[in-house]
């Protein structure tokens, strides 16, 4: 095995995901953290360190917001630090928790991710206008959706993919989310509903997109010897990976996410995975837009380039298919409080591998799962591989 110590997940917590929650960011952190600790049968006394994750300060409206959240994430008078890699933050925070324990410095680490997007008023979209280059992009009035539309269109063009194929992802994930108790947008919709929804930035339509949300998620990590005292069924973090591509996104061919592939290869190498489609039983790729699930399945090497739409059409990615993808309902269905949404995916794989996912449980006794998030200017991939 890799690393000094093998690292286990022994508990998980999650709040509701909603467009507006009454709770402050601090209160959301507390709720998720408390649930994760309770589920592991631990208290804050048992925690040695905290890895915190949250996306732009502009959402919560607090500069250095990690510092503001310390107490609520269990970090008071403990080694606490925040990692931040845009939309990739949620999964990456679990990676950060891994190195706290794998380094041998700590026996336990709390992993907490929070986002309170509704604090950016009247619309969280405002925060996104400041993510662009101030010389090349901001003067043009660039928006988040339009850069993703450029990527989606390029992906469709290179592989000859139809909107109908992509819409199937939205239909599947919103349906899966009906079984998720925290979900914001679980629904039974049809491909026609997606294709008839209002055009945002062609080819992106309203139902191709995940919502803005408030929410928090948390995990408790422990070293091997400590984990075995806490639980009979730990879930092991066997691989972590991350990668960033160039800032100059207009200089890249957007049809394929190289950075996700590099991140996946890093994580698979650590986990000893040689044949991802065969060895991975369930996956939670990042799906803030429906085409991103397909894009990321390809980047995660779960299928060949351009093949993900076909697998989706064939039902392979359904919860009862050969390779269940986003059984949680993903960001499209559960919601997208950015960092919390990424960590929600790690929580889902944890529950799936423990056989505790209830109505969402994928059949076939899954043993290996992968979660992935994506961020920055279409340039960041973070990946984690979990095994029972």
């Amino acid at each position, binding site marked *: 095995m890799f690393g000094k110590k093998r690292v286990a997940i022994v508990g998980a917590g999650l709040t509701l995901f909603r467009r507006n*929650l009454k709770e402050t960011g601090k209160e959301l952190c507390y709720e998720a953290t408390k649930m994760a600790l309770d589920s592991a049968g631990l208290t804050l006394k048992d925690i040695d360190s905290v890895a915190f994750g949250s996306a732009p300060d502009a959402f919560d409206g607090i500069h250095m917001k990690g510092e503001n959240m310390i107490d609520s994430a269990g970090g008071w008078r403990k080694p606490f630090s925040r990692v931040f890699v845009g939309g990739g933050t949620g999964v990456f925070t679990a990676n950060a928790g891994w190195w706290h324990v794998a380094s041998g410095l700590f026996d336990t680490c709390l992993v907490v991710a929070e986002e309170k997007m509704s604090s950016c008023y009247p619309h969280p979209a405002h925060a996104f206008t400041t993510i662009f280059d101030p*010389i090349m992009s901001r003067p043009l009035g660039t928006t988040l959706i339009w850069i993703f539309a450029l990527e989606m269109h*390029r992906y469709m063009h290179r592989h000859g993919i139809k909107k109908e194929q992509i819409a199937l992802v939205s239909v599947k994930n919103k349906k899966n989310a009906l079984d998720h108790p925290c979900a914001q947008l679980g629904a039974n919709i049809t491909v026609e509903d997606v294709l008839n929804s209002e055009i945002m930035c062609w080819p992106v339509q309203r139902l191709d997109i995940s919502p803005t949300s408030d929410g928090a998620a948390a995990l408790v990590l422990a070293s091997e010897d400590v984990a075995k005292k806490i639980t009979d069924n730990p879930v092991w973090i066997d691989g972590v990976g991350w990668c960033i591509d160039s800032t100059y996104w207009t200089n890249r061919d957007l049809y394929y996410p190289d950075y996700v592939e590099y991140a996946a290869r890093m994580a698979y190498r650590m986990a000893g995975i040689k044949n991802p489609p065969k060895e991975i039983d369930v996956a939670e790729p990042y799906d803030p837009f429906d085409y991103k699930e397909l894009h990321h399945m390809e980047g995660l090497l779960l299928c060949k380039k351009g093949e993900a739409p076909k697998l989706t059409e064939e039902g392979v990615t359904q919860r009862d298919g050969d390779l269940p993808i986003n059984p949680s309902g993903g960001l499209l269905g559960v919601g997208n409080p950015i960092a919390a949404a990424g960590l929600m995916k790690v929580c889902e794989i944890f529950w799936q591998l423990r056989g505790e996912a209830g109505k969402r449980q994928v059949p076939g006794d899954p043993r290996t799962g992968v979660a992935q998030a994506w961020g920055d200017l279409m340039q960041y991939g973070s990946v984690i591989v979990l095994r029972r």
Partner: protein
Amino acid sequence: MSAKIKKYAGHPLKSAEIREGKVPTARWRPKAKYMWSAGVAMSRFLNELKNGRIIATRCNKCGRIMVPPRVFCEQCFKPTDNWTYVKDTGTINTYSASFIAGDASRIKEPIIVAIIDLDGASPGMGIQHKIGEINWKEVKFDMKVKAVWKPPEERKGAITDIKYFKPV
């Protein structure tokens, strides 16, 4: 555990409750103002836009001609100080028609945005800009386009010195 948990934390609010002031809130408008130094590479780029030209840098090692220009090649990690003009024509690499403004409000006439691979730069060296003088439904991949510049007296040394690109 997920299956065993009966209740998840969180009190949902309706947007109207917030809008109508039915829940207590604290408001603040951040005063965050910046004046970024454009730096060596982009200062020259912006000055050349004023002259109606697009300037790039070339890497001595890999030979790439890069737009926007930079004082280093990120692939070779070498300084670059070879300056070269590229054309103000190019091909559409990918495009979109935006019906949404930055504040998430809807706009009637969509803004057509595109990545334009500039002629004279290395393959795939695109810049982001708008497309004009065409209905968005008629835009095609690989379409040839040319910059439409503001009149010289209106140029400020900004990317918006190019009004948009139009089909040729």
